[in-house]
């Protein structure tokens, strides 16, 4: 069956460290993956998009990798800050389905000062 899974447990890290979040998928061949941030009661906020022909993308303190062989994307936040505390969602495009996104359940990140 088709699945998209993120670390189910909350991730607690110390301020200044690098947070690494994982997104694994099975039985999909996505053209791209997107990462979003979601705060409680709010809409997802777009962070990064990485396409199938890209290995890595960076934006300021954020980095995302995409390994189509392992069927995995990693999302890194370097020099993390308490303001980075939120739930991070990965979403993939199942290809040729009208732009539809399939979301993972999200990983809750808590950055302690």
């Amino acid at each position, binding site marked *: 069956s088709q699945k998209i899974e993120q670390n189910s447990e909350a991730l607690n890290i110390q301020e200044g460290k690098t947070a690494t979040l994982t997104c694994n998928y099975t039985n999909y061949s996505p053209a791209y993956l997107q990462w979003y941030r979601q705060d409680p009661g709010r809409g997802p906020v777009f962070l990064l998009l990485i396409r199938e022909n890209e290995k890595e993308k960076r934006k300021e303190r954020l980095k995302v990798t995409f390994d189509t062989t392992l069927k995995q994307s990693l999302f890194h936040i370097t020099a993390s800050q308490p303001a980075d505390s939120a739930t991070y969602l990965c979403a993939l*495009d199942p290809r040729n389905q009208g732009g539809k996104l399939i979301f993972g359940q999200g990983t809750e990140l808590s950055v302690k000062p």
Partner: protein
Amino acid sequence: EPEVTQTPSHQVTQMGQEVILRCVPISNHLYFYWYRQILGQKVEFLVSFYNNEISEKSEIFDDQFSVERPDGSNFTLKIRSTKLEDSAMYFCASSEVRLAVYNEQFFGPGTRLTVL
């Protein structure tokens, strides 16, 4: 910075009533979407819309649901006869077309629908 807006922020309705949720996508975007998120669960795709017609819809999007772009700016989701299980946060999103591929989707703040 342009953003997607949604109204109302919270809608309470009785089971069996019709509701219309409204969205104003980002002005130069051509793809529009509705998603929903039941409390504590994943964000789920409902429907995508392009060129005044539905591009894709999920199994959730049955005959009780419809979408419309009544004018050049609004995009609406109608639920004809609400059920208790329709209670959720409903998000509108939009994206632009660049180089003939799908691109990042920008989400609105959501409408919390409560069906009593």
